[in-house]
Every structure is written in structure tokens, then in C-alpha cells.
């Protein structure tokens, strides 16, 4: 039903979304924690910067990432100096771009989850002489688990649905940067509508299933009290 190049695009998309989610779990968790716990003046500006990708059009984000990561941009010169070469038109370039693009989808649910824990459990843990690290892993993590699930699923799903940024910096290379959304766009442009319908249907079913699973797993709201 699906062609080899369709399957390749789907697999690439899943790999991109999976790796981006992992990276953002590592980067996003400390950012969300600082945002949730800090009372400092920079909390507002940092929160705004994290939310920027929600507002900026992918064309803007993609174009400036292309300039920044290209051979004349600061990031490009850094990566060249480090011997990695330049990032546009590579899989890892897409990972970097997606990490920017999906950052708020990781940070914001986590921040909410951390904030809703409140001070009390942390104070209790402190009186029991738990170290901050210990507190984080044995108190915060279990309490914020629903938040982590939501953040992970949203980040993954949002990266799967990414199009504009990938188009701007990807270069549409099969197996490297041609993700499913670009592949569908290609089918449409080439007037291969039957292929476009099939791949779009797969994307639709996949996205619905993932989101449904997330909503079914949500804890029921507590009754009474």
C-alpha cells in the first residue's frame, strides 16, 4: 500500500520526533524546574523566550536557523571549527531545529506540573534530610509523572507535525531530511493525489491513536472534598 519511500519517510519522522523528545526531556526539565521554582526577575523573560516558537511563523524560525547554521552564520562557524561541518541538510540539523521549535511543548506542561506540586512536599522531604537531588527523583518525579507524559506526547506529536522549518533547512533529501509531512507535500505538488491520500491517512490514524492514548491515561479528576 505504501511505497518504500513513504515508509522511509515515516521511519525518519518517528526517529526525528523520538530523538527530539529525548533531548528536550533533558533540556526542558531543568528549564521548567527553574521557571516553576524561581521567584527571580528573569522568570518572566525566560518564560517568554521559551514560548517564542509558539508565536514565530516556521518560515521565520526556519530562515534564521538556515542563516545561523549555514557556513557564514555563528552556529555554522562553530560547528565547522569543531569539525562537524554545517548542520543544514543533515538529520542532526533537523534535530537541533526541532528542539527549538518544540521547546514550549515540553517546558510548559512540565512547568505546570512542577508548580502544582507546591512547597509542602519539598519541605517535608527537606525535614527528612533528603538531598535536593534525592528529593527530585523520589518526590518530584513521581508527583509530576502525568506532566511528563503530557509533555513527552505533545513534543513528539508536534515534531511529527512539523513542516515549515524542515522545508526551510532540510533540502528534501530522501532518508535524511525528507520527513512524512514533506513527502505528502511532494506528492501533492507532483499531482500524485492517491499517494498523498494514503500517507495522510496513515499520519491521521497515527496521530489520533497517540493523542487518544494520552487522554485515556490522564488521571480522573478527584471527586468530593
Amino acid at each position, binding site marked *: 500500500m505504501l511505497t518504500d519511500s513513504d515508509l522511509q519517510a515515516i521511519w525518519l519522522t518517528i526517529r526525528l520526533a523520538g530523538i527530539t523528545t529525548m533531548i528536550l526531556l533533558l533540556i526542558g526539565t531543568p528549564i521548567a524546574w527553574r521557571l516553576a521554582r524561581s521567584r527571580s526577575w528573569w522568570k518572566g523573560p525566560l518564560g517568554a523566550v521559551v514560548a517564542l516558537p509558539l508565536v514565530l511563523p516556521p518560515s521565520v524560525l526556519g530562515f534564521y536557523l538556515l542563516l545561523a*547554521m549555514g*557556513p557564514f552564520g555563528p552556529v555554522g562557524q562553530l560547528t565547522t571549527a569543531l569539525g562537524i561541518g*554545517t548542520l543544514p541538510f543533515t538529520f542532526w540539523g533537523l534535530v537541533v531545529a526541532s528542539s527549538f521549535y518544540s521547546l514550549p511543548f515540553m517546558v510548559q506542561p512540565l512547568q505546570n506540573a512542577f508548580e502544582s506540586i507546591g512547597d509542602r512536599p519539598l519541605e517535608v522531604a527537606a525535614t527528612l534530610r533528603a538531598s535536593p537531588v534525592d528529593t527530585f527523583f523520589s518526590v518530584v518525579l513521581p508527583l509530576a509523572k502525568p506532566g511528563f507524559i503530557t509533555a513527552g506526547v505533545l513534543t513528539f506529536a508536534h515534531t511529527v507535525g512539523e513542516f515549515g522549518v524542515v522545508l526551510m*533547512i532540510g*533540502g*528534501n*533529501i530522501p532518508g535524511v531530511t525528507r520527513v512524512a509531512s514533506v513527502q505528502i*507535500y511532494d506528492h501533492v*505538488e507532483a499531482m500524485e493525489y492517491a499517494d498523498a491520500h494514503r500517507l495522510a491517512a496513515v499520519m491521521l490514524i497515527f496521530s489520533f491513536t497517540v493523542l487518544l492514548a494520552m487522554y485515556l491515561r490522564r488521571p480522573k479528576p478527584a471527586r468530593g472534598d
Partner: protein
Amino acid sequence: MKRLSTLILSLLAIATAHADEVQVAVAANFTGPMQVISVLFERDTGHKANLSFGATGKFYAQITNGAPFEVFLAADNKTPAKLLKEGHAVAGTAFTYAIGTLVLWSADAKLVDAKGEVLKKGGFKHLSLANPKTAPYGTAGLQVMNKLGVADSIKPLIVQGENISQTHQFISTGAAELGFVAYSQVIKNGAIGSGSGWIVPANLYDPIRQNAVILDKGKDKPAAVALMNYLKGEKAQAVIKSFGYELR
């Protein structure tokens, strides 16, 4: 009395002509010349041309699904023919408004030599090409590489632009060292404006015939007909030539 009514009638004609607008879908490579032509067109005829720029394949999808375009300046001759066959365009209106010229171009002033030997020598990591499946300039670029026998060695280096504008953007930002674009995108005062380039000889690729057609929505619209005639006129053709296109 008769004179007065003629005067009123002709004034009315001018007034309605002034009010007439035409919605035009323009292939991305023709952006530059069409912006100039539309200004002249408005000044000379009183009609206003509202321009949308984009990829020909995308316009096809939009037109067949009811987009309000009245005239279509495509990047090829296949898409207008297909629209005619499917009844979305007005029979007998299609004509070749420009024949595209392909250029191998780099933002680096030293990279591309006057004979395009760089394709055989290599020394670049990325070559930008418009998607050959959908963009005529991409198809032409691929034909050139096949004819020169370098397609196999260059294929792994190809990065694809969604349309010819994005292909140009990849090169102008330096992300790709060189690539195939339309001459119209890099021409300035009758020569390649910046960087370095090779105007590919016409015998290395099939002619890029760009056809215009009146679409169903523009049927019997004076402004649409006027624009088609204007494109065939001397003034428009001078602009088209100055952007490096050939005319029949």
C-alpha cells in the same frame, strides 16, 4: 447630443476598465519580471493585476479546487495543458510567454567557471536543485548533469528546494555552495549580478516553455484578456528579455 452620449459611453468604459482587477497566479521564477510588467500594465491599461507567486504544482492543486485565479503564468507548458484538458482553463488562450534560461550559480565569486567545469571537478558539498519531479528548472538541471555524465557523482550532494525561489535561497545564504536556478533570478543589467555563474547552453536541456492561460474564472473578463495581450506586446516582451528569458 450624439457626441455627448459617445463621450459618456467612453468615460463609462474607462471607469469600468479602471475598476477591473485580474487575479494572477505567477510561477516563482517569473516573480521579478512580472512585478515590473504589472506596474506597466496598470499604467497603460488602467487594469490592476493582483499577483500571487508560488510553485506551479501547488497552483494546480489550488486552481482545480476553486482558487479565485483568473490568469495563470505557469513555469511549464504541461500544467496549463492539463488544466485545459480538465476544463479548468479557456480553450485557445494558452501561449508561450517566455522560454526559461538555466544558470548554474554560486554566491561565491570564484566557484563557478564560465564553462561549468566545476560540475566535473567537484569541490563542493551541496548542490541546490529545484525538485525535478515538480519544477521545470529542476528537471532541466538534472538533464544537464545527465548529459555531462556527472549525475551519478553529484546526486548524493543534491539538496532540493520546494520551488525555484527556495533553491535560490539555499545558494544565496551559502548553505549550498552552488545550484541550478533561473537566469531571471540572478540577472542584473544583462549579466549575472553577483557571485559566479554559468549560463547553461540550450542544447544541454529541453526548452523550458512557460505557458500562460486564461482560467475558467477569468472567462470573458476584459482585464484577463487585456493582460494576455499585454504580455504579447512589445513593452512586456522587452522586460521579459531583460530578465534573461528567450521569446519564441
